[in-house]
């Protein structure tokens, strides 16, 4: 799929907003027992709460996990189309110290006004819209294909924005379940484009992110570079944009194991990253192994999972020549995660923890090229030190969430990123005699970012969630104050986010 709406964003936005309001209106007219909800609910005829904890998508209940692991095949084949729209408005604490260039594309803002970055601040926007083609295909095949449109993918030189539509998460499965007196074995295969998108627990990297989430580095202030665990493969589009085949098994609802291999989504696998330009896709050297183990147990109304995961990938730098063996970096990721859920009407409580350690060995070419962001440090004298050959980043998340009667609830999410400080991470200082920095600047070379997100939400009908979030940063890119060397403090990125999340 190619770019759909370049240069037509204002009109497209109006249409989306109108469509969203129309859908909200139609949805509110439906009786609550109506099954006019996305494909999976149509397929089983069940309410969202059957598969989603307290009705809070995308977090899965034990039954939701079994639905996924058995290949989305429970129920009957039905209309496979569903859609999701997130309308949001965000307000960032300090909008006076924006960037002079688009942090997403690197293009300079036309007006030269550094505050252009915040032109959508406080305004209602259609933050993201997805189309899903999902559900049962046959008795043992099923799938989940998400195509996402980002109306604010990049800023144009005239101050407008261009949207972009990409293949987002894709998970196509074959699954079987073998049952005997002492054995209940679910096994299957997943063709997917994002490591861990096939995982049934929401502490997996692909699902930890509680969409939407405030982020000061995207134009609509959602998603973007929010600190979440990952495997270091994201080329900027939705999903992981790579092609993977995994094999998994779940024995007696207790032991889960999955192994897989990922490669570049090229040639016959091109559909898995459709919408991303060839020059922007993630290019892997050979096959990258992925693994996942988890132990699961039911405890009365609760259930607990502890797990571990990992991946090792050789990723080519940017659009560099994939035949140059000096132009790929190596990323080794190891993660630990745990989840406890208590589900007994009218209460739902979830505690989630995820910790990812990522070791990166930079490519010889990138180390030799030196720092391309700045020439000198913030004193405008000291040259940027030579780059190091490797870095380590640790990302931890803890989230507690409660929902009452699948109607109202709240969550508390703590995040912490730390790791080695290195010249590789320095993006603020002087370049060509001009000071760089601001929102995404990093003057210290430390990745340390930490904070907390508070959230309250209300679900008037099962396919609409209204929420308010406040994200407060105690550290950002290495410091609590003046992290960019140009006066921006971590707390300047604190964000209030209002959102309406509609699925239909």
């Amino acid at each position, binding site marked *: 799929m190619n770019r759909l709406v370049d240069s037509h964003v204002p009109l497209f936005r109006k249409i989306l907003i109108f469509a969203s309001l129309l859908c909200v209106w139609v949805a509110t007219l439906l009786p609550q*027992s109506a*099954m006019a909800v996305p494909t999976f609910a149509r397929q*089983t005829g069940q*309410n969202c709460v059957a598969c989603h904890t307290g009705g809070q998508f995308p977090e899965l209940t034990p039954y939701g996990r079994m639905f996924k692991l058995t290949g989305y095949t429970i129920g009957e084949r039905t209309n496979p189309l569903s859609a999701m729209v997130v309308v949001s408005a965000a307000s960032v604490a300090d909008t006076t110290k924006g960037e002079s260039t688009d942090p997403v594309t690197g293009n300079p803002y036309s007006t030269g006004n550094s505050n252009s970055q915040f032109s959508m601040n406080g305004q209602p926007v259609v933050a993201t819209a997805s189309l899903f083609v999902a559900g049962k295909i046959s*008795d043992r*095949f099923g799938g989940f294909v998400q195509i996402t449109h980002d109306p604010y993918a990049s800023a144009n030189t005239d101050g407008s924005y261009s949207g972009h539509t990409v293949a987002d998460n894709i998970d196509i499965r074959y699954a079987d379940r073998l049952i005997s007196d002492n054995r209940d074995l679910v096994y299957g295969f997943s063709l997917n484009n994002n490591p861990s998108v096939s995982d049934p627990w929401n502490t997996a990297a692909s699902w930890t992110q509680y969409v939407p989430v405030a982020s000061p580095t995207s134009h609509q202030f959602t998603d973007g570079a929010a600190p979440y665990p990952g495997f270091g493969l994201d080329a900027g589009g939705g999903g992981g944009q790579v092609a993977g085949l995994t094999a998994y098994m779940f024995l007696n609802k207790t032991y889960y194991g999955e192994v897989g291999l990922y490669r570049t989504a090229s040639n016959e696998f091109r*559909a898995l990253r459709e919408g991303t330009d060839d020059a922007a896709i993630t290019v892997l050297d050979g096959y990258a192994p992925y693994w996942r183990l988890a132990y699961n147990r039911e405890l009365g109304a609760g259930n607990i999972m502890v797990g571990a995961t990992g991946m090792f990938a050789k990723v080519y730098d940017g659009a560099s020549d994939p035949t140059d063996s000096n132009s790929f970096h190596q990323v080794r990721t190891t993660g630990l995660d745990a989840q406890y859920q208590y589900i007994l009407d009218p209460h739902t409580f979830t505690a989630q923890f995820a910790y990812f350690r990522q070791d990166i060995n930079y490519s010889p070419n990138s180390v030799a090229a030196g720092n391309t962001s700045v020439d000198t440090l913030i004193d405008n004298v000291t040259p940027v030190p030579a780059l190091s050959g490797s870095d380590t980043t640790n990302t931890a998340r803890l989230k507690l969430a409660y929902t009452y009667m699948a109607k109202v609830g709240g969550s508390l999410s703590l995040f912490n990123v730390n790791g080695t400080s290195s010249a590789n991470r320095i993006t603020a200082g002087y370049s060509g005699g001009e000071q760089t920095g601001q929102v995404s600047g990093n003057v210290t070379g430390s990745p340390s970012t930490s904070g907390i997100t508070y959230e309250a939400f209300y679900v008037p009908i099962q396919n609409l969630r209204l929420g308010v979030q406040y994200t407060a940063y105690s550290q950002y890119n290495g410091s609590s104050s003046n992290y960019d060397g140009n006066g921006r403090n971590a707390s300047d990125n604190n964000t209030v986010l209002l959102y309406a999340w509609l699925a239909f």
Partner: protein
Amino acid sequence: MNKSVLIGMGAAVALLAGCSSVERSRDLADPNVPGVTLAQQVCSNCHGMDGNTISPAFPQLAGQQPSYIVNQLTNFRAEQRTDPAGYRYMWGLSRHLTDAQIADIADYYSKQTPKRPRGPSPDATTLAAGKQLYTQGDAQTNVLACVTCHGPSAQGMAHFPRLAYQHSDYIVKQLDIFQNTEGRPGTPMAAVTHPLTAQQKASVAAYLQNFPE
């Protein structure tokens, strides 16, 4: 037409045409899938492979009276049970089950061996009060003895469900539904539960979950 399109089309044809079988199917709209297969492949996700559940959110079905299971599934299918858990979970799953599949599912679960749910034991006073209510009722408040219909072993009888080893939380919630709503029509339980106090409901439910061997 390029290679990837051809591969995609070929895969789609293979998925749709070549891979269907009723064996181990989870298709709830295929009348050819045996009820036992559906019980194991679908119902077991919540109700357990042997009808014993760990979570009190889902009722125990092991050893349940087959007539009762048939009755309830038929009511779900006809959208007559309107209690929230009923319509949220069961309307859709049962909407296209055939009478034969329902009978198979009922037969499968009725033949399983019920096990007492794990959990802390209630205090002796609560158990004694529950037993008193179950076996004798309460003449002062016009509460009928449960044993009359549900049997001395709480094993149930025909349309009257087995209650022994049922989760106490589930029993209390069902008693609330009978007492305060019209979510489960067509039973005498609305009248039976009318005089029950919250304490009585809790004690009889605790007694039934921990029913003596």
